[in-house]
């Protein structure tokens, strides 16, 4: 390893990111399907990962700055486009943050509808993640099955909001349109189907050798690490810490239809699998009881167009964890400052800890474990620091490497 690379790593490793490694492998950075593409410098000792230094921002689009030039209502649609998977969580965080400024009570029906759509989004996001873990672990059948089931959830989302991905549904004062007639009869059989499939998958992830070998004991984080690095969402709950914004600080109608909070104790990828499957079941229950209790009445209140001066902090439980919004208004047509802290940003440090001590073959599964989308896998350069030779390993090659590495190994 060349001298300057060594010293560079040492500085960045002060305290948190300490390492003494033989070689560095750049990992990333292009990550087309994610709001936060990540580039990880993996410092390797042989094939073991000794330290990870993140470098992010490759598609930082300056959305917080752009928001300062756009009208309040236009920003709903801007923030939704931060993420294609949890778009509703973003619009929910922002609209509720602004509603908190106006001190306007929104109709109960709107709150219930928001819960239903948010939980549908959680189900589809968790299914998507489960499929991806199947893919990176070399179990593509699981990926195909799960993504087929996910289509049904997307169809429901489309039936309610008119869109599959960017729902553009939540707005100031409620939701953009009412639930279509007879939607409850449409949702219930689909949820029954999802429940049946989830029970099947839960059994599968506990018995299927491929998944057990690739996920059990892999990417383990302890409770102490979790307390130190403050991850959010499933990554926190898989270590046994029962925290969820929906319970701790109920927004929308979650105080009336609270979800059953799920935890696991192992803190590894296998426990994340079980945890997310259980959370899907909990979400189904929430939707069921929300449909049962769904009050009649208006779905939207007209709130004043001028947002009064002030500032508010708001957080929601996105599928990936706590999503934080800070909104500051100067009383004008545009917000003075909106700050967004996404769950992936909060989980990034924990992900670097999860990778430590594992091999290159585990990288795809562990990084998927923190639940970013994994487009960046398609472009990795491997640098041989001694001979300065450089070659590129595609995502498919690395995936194959992972499968070969574990071939013949039993748990």
């Amino acid at each position, binding site marked *: 390893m060349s001298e300057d690379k060594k010293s560079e790593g040492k*500085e*960045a*490793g*002060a*305290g*948190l*990111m300490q390492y003494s490694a033989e070689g560095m492998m750049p990992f990333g950075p292009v990550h087309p399907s994610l709001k936060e593409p990540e580039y990880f410098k993996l410092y390797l000792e042989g094939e073991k990962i000794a330290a990870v230094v*993140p*470098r*992010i*921002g*490759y598609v*930082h689009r*300056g959305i*917080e*700055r752009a928001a300062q030039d756009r009208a309040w209502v236009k920003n709903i649609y801007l923030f939704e486009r931060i993420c294609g998977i949890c778009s509703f969580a973003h619009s929910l965080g922002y609209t509720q943050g602004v509603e908190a400024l106006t001190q306007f009570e929104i109709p109960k029906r709107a709150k219930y509808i928001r819960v239903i759509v948010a939980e549908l989004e959680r189900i589809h996001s968790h299914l998507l993640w489960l499929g991806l873990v199947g893919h990176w672990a070399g179990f593509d059948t699981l990926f195909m099955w799960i993504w087929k089931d996910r289509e049904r959830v997307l169809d429901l989302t489309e039936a309610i909001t008119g869109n599959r991905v960017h729902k553009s549904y939540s707005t100031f004062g409620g939701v953009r349109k009412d639930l279509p007639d007879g939607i409850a009869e449409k949702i219930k059989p689909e949820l029954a189907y999802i429940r049946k499939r989830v029970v099947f998958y839960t059994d599968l992830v506990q018995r299927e050798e491929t998944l057990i070998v690739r996920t059990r004991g892999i990417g383990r984080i302890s409770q102490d690490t979790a307390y*130190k*690095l*403050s991850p959010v969402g499933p990554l926190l709950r898989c270590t046994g810490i029962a925290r969820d914004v929906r319970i*701790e*600080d109920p927004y929308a109608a979650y105080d009336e239809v609270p979800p059953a909070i799920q935890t696991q104790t192992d803190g590894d990828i296998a426990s994340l699998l079980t945890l997310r499957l259980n959370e899907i079941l909990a979400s189904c229950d929430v939707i069921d009881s929300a449909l049962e209790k769904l009050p009649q009445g208006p779905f939207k209140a007209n709130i004043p167009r001028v947002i009064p001066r002030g500032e508010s*902090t708001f*957080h929601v439980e996105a599928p990936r964890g706590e999503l*934080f919004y*800070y909104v*500051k208004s100067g009383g004008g047509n545009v917000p*003075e*400052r909106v*700050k967004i*802290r996404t769950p992936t*940003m*909060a989980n*990034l*440090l924990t992900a670097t800890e999860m990778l430590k001590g594992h091999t290159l073959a585990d990288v795809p599964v562990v990084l998927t474990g923190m639940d970013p989308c994994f487009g960046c896998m398609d472009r990795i350069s491997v640098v041989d620091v001694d001979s300065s030779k450089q070659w590129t390993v595609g995502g498919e090659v690395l995936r194959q490497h992972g499968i070969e590495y574990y071939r013949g190994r039993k748990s």
Partner: protein
Amino acid sequence: MTGYDKGESIEILYHFWQGKRFVDVRTSVPKAAPRLKSISSVVAAATLYEAEIQDILGVSFDGNPFQGKRLLLPDTYPAEAPPPLTKEANPEKIRKMLELE
């Protein structure tokens, strides 16, 4: 953590969740000498948030492992240009500096 340009100074907010509500700790640094002590040795989770504020508002945090390094900003962002979220930052001027136009 939120950073905010107030004109003469930069305001930094630390949002702590206290189990029931957010407690915001507020501080501000003059824009002429934007320097603060890092809390990353106490609250490790703040490491990346401080690094983000350093990139977008130019506040330097003493003791943060990312001090003087970029986490979010591209390497090509001109060092002499004002940080992108300050009020002085003008996209057109920055584009000229980068010779994109």
